[in-house]
């Protein structure tokens, strides 16, 4: 366990959700909401508190798409590539965003931790396709140009 890591956030989450084995997913979700990813220091700590192996907790963290083990950017942009968005041309939007931010399919977060660009299978806002979200706010009817303009706007808020 790390001496320098402040476990007060994790303790707060455990106080709220308890230390039952079935709460693992909720606990990780709450921790990630705070840090925007799962810091590696939490695994041995949770293992001790919950009385389950680190491997078990780690297996959950790696199984589910939503958990990140690397820090994410301040603005997490999720481009919907569900069927409805896909047939209304969502891929050019994704490509433009990656181009504007110098990201690729592998490199998803900018070095200054400003932006993360990823895809999501469906946001359920199909009536407004193509859509993307920035930190869970939905932007409807996007185009590559609109997406580029949005990036410029968000850069001002960094």
């Amino acid at each position, binding site marked *: 366990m790390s001496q320098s890591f402040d476990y007060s956030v994790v303790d707060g989450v455990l106080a709220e959700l308890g230390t*039952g*084995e*079935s*709460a*693992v*997913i*909720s606990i*990780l*979700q709450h921790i990630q909401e705070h840090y925007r990813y799962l810091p590696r220091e939490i695994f041995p700590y949770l293992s001790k508190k919950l009385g389950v192996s680190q491997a078990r907790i780690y*297996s*959950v963290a790696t*199984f*589910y*798409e*939503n*958990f990140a083990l690397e820090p994410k950017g301040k603005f997490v942009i999720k481009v919907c*590539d*569900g*069927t*409805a968005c*896909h*047939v*209304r041309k969502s891929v050019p939007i994704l490509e433009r965003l990656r181009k504007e931010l110098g990201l690729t399919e592998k490199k998803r977060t900018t070095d200054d931790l400003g932006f993360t660009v990823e895809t*999501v*299978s*469906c*946001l*359920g*806002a*199909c*009536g*407004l*396709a193509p*859509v993307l979200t920035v930190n*869970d*706010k*939905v*932007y*409807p009817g996007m185009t590559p140009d609109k997406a580029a303009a949005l990036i410029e706007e968000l850069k001002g808020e960094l």
Partner: protein
Amino acid sequence: MHLKTREDLRAARVLYGKSLAAQEKKILVCAGTGCISSGSLDVYDRLRELMEERGIHCAVRLEEEPHEHEVGMKKSGCHGFCEMGPLVRIEPWGYLYTKVKVADCEEIVEKTILGGEHIERLAYHQNGKVFEKQDEIPFYQKQTRLVLEHCGHIDATSIEEYLGIGGYTALEKALFEMDGDAIIRTVTDSGLRGRGGGGFPAGKKWSQVKAQKTEEKYIVCNGDEGDPGAFMDRSIMEGDPHRLLEGMMIAGLACGAAEGYIYVRAEYPMAVERLRTAISQAEAWGLLGENVLGTGFSFKMHINRGAGAFVCGEGSALTASIEGKRGMPRVKPPRTVEHGLFDKPTVLNNVETFANVPRIIREGAEWFQSFGTAGSPGTKAFALTGNIENTGLIEVPMGTTLREIIFDIGGGIKDGKEFKAVQIGGPSGGCLIETNLDLPLDFDSLKKVGGMIGSGGLVVMDDSTCMVEVARFFMNFTQNESCGKCVPCREGTRRMLEIMERIVDGRGEEGDIETLLELSDMISNTALCGLGKTAAFPVLGTIRYFRDEYEAHIREKRCPAGQCQKLKRIWIEADECKGCSKCARNCPVNAITGKVKEPFTIDANKCIKCGACVEACPFHAVKEG
């Protein structure tokens, strides 16, 4: 208010029914995910501000003693007409205003609220015709809204309004007038089949759980609506959350379960919020919790948020996920009704199925049978999306034809293009084409043509869509979502995806189609769960109907729809090129050369077909196809 007896509940319903009726005018601003992202909450705030400025008494919450000349201001659930949002419905007239902006609010208050006048500019127009009222719009006229009846008509965050329109009457009836067997008999007789895709009779499932001699049992609601292009369940959870709770409680009462779990997709934060609100309201009112209305019946409700794994829509994976484990399916039998959540007998139904229950209990099995077809009674909600004029959420009787849905309700194909195909049932469904348009949509008739209703996503595709690319898209989706437990799905979908990728990249080989068919057969027969068993369906369906497109990609290295990037040809039309050199300056790989003021040319060997030159050319002389 805490309701302790049946009489308390009845009195509350009468009280709030009167309050609702006393509201002379109602403004319902759609607060579904779609309209909110188009800015409906700003419209709501502005309307309220304007009303207050003018001293009009507006009730944000339903009041026990309504004010004279009161205007009710409500955030409603999804109206389904997402394309036209933000939507504002104004009663008593039933006007529907579309694409409302903050700047329109003043006119709405002045003309409509104060003057009762209709604003034509904001109404829905189709082919030059103005539709004043919501019910007159063709999109709504052909629908039968039973499950979605309250969505868009009441405040989704108010238990008072739900009670005011007769909410929790079914629970009352079930608690005081029926026993478990009677409830199950009604559900069985109604012929209600699971709306999640399988179409398994709900009454049968419930009776199997009831028959188990275990003390602990669970009711689980599958709200992990993972099919891309489907959002029926999201709209129910957001727009009428109490209805879902009521349905689940009735199931608990019938089967002898005291705890319920709702598993909601991570991508639906608002559904989680609305359900949480509804649960705490129902608890505070004594309709959920210990000893409901003094009957001795207790029920506890939990919400679990998914963490982004499509496979968790599968029953045993979903229960594993609730238990805090990796969401991986297991071998069946034993089935969920015997060994489900925490290894106990479990009723697992989806949102729409539970939402159908309250009205069935209230109005009886025969009433439900009067909708739909003999084998598939009732209605079905569909999410209508893709290249279609009116996208949105619809509900029609089972047995409605695709033609009615796409052309009458959906308004036909967008931008006057031709209909090509419709993908039904998401990545595990199949595609239907022109000749299937008059097929009645129900569980059984679709199976005959190799399709399935699935959860209800309908993605319409026009003639500019490449079916091979669509199949590759679905294959990519299922491959990504394969949990990796069983070999046929983990390895088989990967091999299929590789072949599909080669074909759309122009590296397809003779024999690829046969290999795909063979792999499809193998995976469908040997995979562990529904995800794997149906993974190949999109490929099979597109090969069946569009084999010529596959062959064009493989043999001629040509994409008939002109969509596949790698098979695209980009050239400069010499007659139209003015020689401005803008294309050459924008080309990232220096594939374009020429002399200024003379036509430029593209070196096909260097070109990466990125399309930068097409966008750059001010004279539209760079063509692609």
